[in-house]
């Protein structure tokens, strides 16, 4: 057999093996990708824990100030999941976790990191689930701000913002922003107000958000059931 023919046969076998791995064992590719990426966290673990805990407490306080007697006091049960891999391109912001329908994951449920809402389950597979994060450009979610519960619309993207805030709303930097979406548990913290400005059409206020975590550093999440 000539060298050229040998080369072609090796390629054909390698292509078949790759095809089988892609279809039946994609997790090996995720491990290889994790090895190649080896991201460093932007925050120290302790800073993330403290900041996230601070946001969680602020959200709890805001929730109690608004409708304390009307909310259930028992925390919902959760499923712990590890992050497998992330969407590699610019267009979306989502990641895959290692819990699926087999573990009881349901589409549309909230995904939390240290008690903070980071995304929503978008698609569920047998052993895994795709989570769309709040940094995804397609995210649009009703939220509330601060102890007074001013209404706003969270718009996702690389720099999520709370828009459609009434100009009379007295919001300031540091106010907690929490979920007010009917499909999610009320009061889940999302972030804090960073800066405020007037919308381009001059009709509303807008607020940029600060977050207590680095999305790229998240490795474990909790999925609500």
């Amino acid at each position, binding site marked *: 057999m000539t060298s050229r023919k040998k080369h072609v046969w090796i390629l054909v076998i390698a*292509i078949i093996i790759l095809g089988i791995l*892609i279809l039946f064992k*994609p997790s090996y*590719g995720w491990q290889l990708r994790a090895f190649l*990426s080896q991201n460093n966290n932007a925050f120290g673990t302790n800073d993330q824990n403290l900041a996230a805990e601070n946001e969680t407490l602020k959200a709890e306080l805001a929730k109690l100030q608004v409708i304390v007697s009307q909310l259930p006091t028992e925390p919902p049960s959760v499923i712990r999941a590890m992050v497998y891999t992330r969407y590699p391109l610019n*267009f979306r912001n989502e990641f895959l976790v290692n819990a699926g329908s087999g573990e009881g994951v349901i589409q549309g449920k909230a995904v939390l990191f240290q008690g903070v809402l980071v995304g929503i389950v978008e698609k569920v*597979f047998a052993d895994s689930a795709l989570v769309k994060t709040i940094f995804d450009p397609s995210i649009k979610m009703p939220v509330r701000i601060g102890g007074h519960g001013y209404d706003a619309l969270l718009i996702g993207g*690389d720099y999520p913002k709370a828009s459609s805030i009434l100009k009379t709303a007295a919001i300031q930097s540091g106010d907690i922003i929490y979920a007010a979406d009917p499909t999610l548990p009320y009061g889940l913290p999302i972030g804090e107000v960073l800066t405020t400005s007037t919308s381009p059409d001059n009709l509303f206020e807008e607020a940029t958000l600060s977050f207590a975590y680095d999305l790229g550093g998240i490795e474990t999440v909790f999925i609500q059931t």
Partner: protein
Amino acid sequence: MRSVTFLGGLIILGIAFVLEFWLGSAGIHVVLVLATLIGFAFLFDLAELIFFVLFAVFIINWQPTVSTGIIVFMVIPIVAYIFRKSVPWQGWLGNLIAIFLGFFLLYLFLSPTFILLNPGAFFLDLVISLAFGEAVFFLLNQS
């Protein structure tokens, strides 16, 4: 000599992945791997190109199933190969045009409004990927 070029291609593909992840962690989202694969379409034969494409898909696929996005990602370098065979231009020029058109196709298929809503991000990706793809072409073309 052929196996050295093939090995060089594997190493460059690995470098493209590492660079892409590193830039992504800094908030600069580029698709260097696609630019590399399109460059490979002008350097390698079809079997070798298919191997490189599948290897890239193996690493880049983020779901347990093969999605539309991955299929589009796989098809673009193959179309670039057909383009190379159909048009008798200088390799570097064909590579440049193929990367340019390939990126437009990728963005149009996966997120048609992205170019309009985020023109800066798109052109940054395009410029960096064009430069990287051409560098890959010249580097391997000389070996």
